[in-house]
């Protein structure tokens, strides 16, 4: 039976990589490598990364509350020094299983069959996971950066549903969960740098 073997939260702030003020940041970048080592030590085979669209992927014309990418992946598509826009290992079968489980559970998630992810998914996938394909990523985008936002209770219930989905999946997959967020909760406002 599949099992969640670990969970991590981490920032994906582009300024960490653009580093306009040329501040010392080696210890921050090393933290990603440290997580990668822990993921490898856990023997993980899958990673579900939860992130937010930053009005980079989804235009005002279509704003999903939840989106799971079921196909091939690459990214991050936004230019970040030191983080290449490169293929990201995926598992369409596992991702489709999660989508089907979500739909059976009352969550009408949207789907992307091929996705160039932004830094929310791309940073953890490229820096905190092995790049040899041993851990396949499933991106989950949640509407937490652009209105209308996912309600907190709905987000909580969604997380529980994902946990149930993994627990109910046959096989011996070892899954890590990654919550990808910003250092600042006030991006684009006068409190951005606070």
């Amino acid at each position, binding site marked *: 039976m599949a099992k969640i073997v670990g969970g991590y939260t981490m920032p994906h702030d582009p300024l960490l990589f653009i580093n*306009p003020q040329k501040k010392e940041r080696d210890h921050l970048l090393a933290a990603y490598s440290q997580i990668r080592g822990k993921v490898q030590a856990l023997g993980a085979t899958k990673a579900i990364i939860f992130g937010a669209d*930053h009005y980079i992927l989804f235009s005002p014309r279509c704003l999903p509350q939840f989106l799971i990418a079921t196909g091939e992946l690459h990214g991050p598509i936004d230019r970040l020094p030191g983080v290449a826009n490169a293929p990201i290992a995926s598992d369409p079968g596992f991702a489709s299983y999660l989508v089907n489980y979500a739909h059976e559970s009352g969550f009408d998630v949207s789907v992307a069959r091929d996705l160039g992810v932004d830094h929310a998914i791309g940073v953890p996938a490229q820096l905190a996971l092995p790049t040899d394909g041993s851990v396949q990523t499933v991106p989950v985008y949640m509407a937490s950066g652009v209105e209308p*936002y996912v309600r907190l209770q709905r987000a909580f219930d969604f997380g529980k549903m994902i946990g149930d989905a993994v627990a109910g999946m046959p096989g011996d997959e070892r899954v890590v969960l990654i919550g990808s967020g910003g250092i600042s909760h006030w991006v*684009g406002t006068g409190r*951005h740098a606070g």
Partner: protein
Amino acid sequence: MSYGAVEQLFYDVSTSRSRKDAFREDAGEVAGKYALNDTEREMVLSMQVEKLFEYGINPMLLMGFWISVRGPQSMPDYLKRVPTLASRLEASAR
């Protein structure tokens, strides 16, 4: 109130190199392709980010638009212009 046309313009300028270049070259012509009212058009063409913020434009999109047009090094200038405005994220959480 709908500001979808403004956000679509900002999204296009922020994610399309050709649209960004076109806006830099002739902002008025680009703005003319979107269904902006007179107030919106004035705010956009004069890059009045304070008013656009108050108008309800998504802050990430607004900052991205500013940086796309003025360059990455201009981010501190943007943040100086919106220093005292309460975040709509906070307002919506009340």
